[in-house]
């Protein structure tokens, strides 16, 4: 049996009574493909950062450094949009 949420801790009517908490919903846990960056090929054009629908591309000092996998659904848009084929989509391993 799965571990269901404790009903006593839930707000009634499936209401979320605080704002700005969608970040806490980890959408990355049902990913089947993971983006892997080949850092040598990357020219930091940040096209992937613009296209990523889940804001998972990490940019530090205007440089692409990797992915925030907690929210990455593995859609592959970053790999598809990369002009230098610097991103490969690889099978998730359990």
């Amino acid at each position, binding site marked *: 049996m*799965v571990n*269901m*949420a404790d009903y006593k801790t839930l707000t*009634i*009517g*499936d*209401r*979320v*009574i*605080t704002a700005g908490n969608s970040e806490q919903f980890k959408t990355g846990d049902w990913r089947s493909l993971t983006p892997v960056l080949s850092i040598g090929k990357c020219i930091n054009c940040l096209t992937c950062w613009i296209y990523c629908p889940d804001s998972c591309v990490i940019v530090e000092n205007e440089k692409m450094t990797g992915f925030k996998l907690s929210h990455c659904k593995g859609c592959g848009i970053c790999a598809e949009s990369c002009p230098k084929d610097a991103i490969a989509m690889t099978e998730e391993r359990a």
Partner: protein
Amino acid sequence: MRGHSDIAINGDSAVALAWKQIDPDVCAAYPITPQTIIVEKFAEYVADGEVTTEFVCVESEHSALTLCITSASAGARTFTATASQGLAYMWEMLPIASSMRVPIIMAVANRAVSGPININNDHGDVMSARDCGWITLFAENVQQAYDMSIVAPRIAEHHGVQLPCLVNLDGFILTHATERMSPIDDSVVRKFVGEHKPLYPLLDVKHPVSHNLMDGPLFYFPHKYQMVEAMDRALEVSRDIFAEFAKISGREYKLVEEYRCEDADAIAIVLGSSFGTMKEAVDQLRNEGHKVGVAMPRLYRPWPIADLAKVMKDKKAVIVMDRHLSVGSYGPMFPEVVAAAIENDKVPKMYNYIYGLGGADTMVSDFKKVFTEPHSGKAKRVNYLGVVR
């Protein structure tokens, strides 16, 4: 408490009068026979400025209930009314209203569901909505249709309950028949119903909230279970509200209404206006020497199991009267009464009578048969009163 202030009024107008006195924030409804007078009458009150209600003319019952759900989510006290096909058209939204825990009040002028097309009374509409998580109240007469309309928001809006509520009155028999009724003073009703205090309303802009989100398997069942507990609490809350209502009206309601049940050998269980007809049948049979009685569950949801078990204790026979038919099974109430009966060590003989479908007139003499037939061994487990076979 019958007095000089009594009025002659039909059931629909009595519901509209209760609504006028309550003065809800929002009302959205689509007219359908035999509910129409409620909406027409209430629209008049709105047009005449006798209420402050925002009255919304919608294009269908589906839209009516959808509007009610959003308006109640926003924090408004919200009322609607329908019947038969209208309730059927609302069906998709019924469990959404209850799972969103919005205390909408809906009057249902009970009418047969098509087909064959029929506009007369039976309980096919409300019984087909019974699993949708709404509190379900029944009225025996016009007075009770009015009274239940006043207690309904108190039960539904209780912070331990927060569930929508159906107030049932039999189509035509109550909706269109004029009866004598004692209204309560406007100010007393307003004070009794009180201010609506919604929980986490959408329009509380200082506390932003989200309603009706997607629930995965880890959350859906727990949220449903919360409704189970809320319904359980609604029983005790109803008992308390009925006691409080007795103080302002002199009319005392119970979770299960009893008539001459105490020393009876056989009792009938019945819903709605038939309770009155059945009382007359009981009186006549008592005069003929039969120890019989009749009971009516005031609430169908939550189902008052303990109180029903108590009224059936030590009875020799229980006859369950269903004004609806689940084709291929029993009447809808029969299995539920049997389930309540097994709470007792000794289970009485139990019979089911389906009666009055599509407005088939059922007279006192018909109701007397439901006691005499089982007694003389002529009754089957399920019987179809008046059907020529």
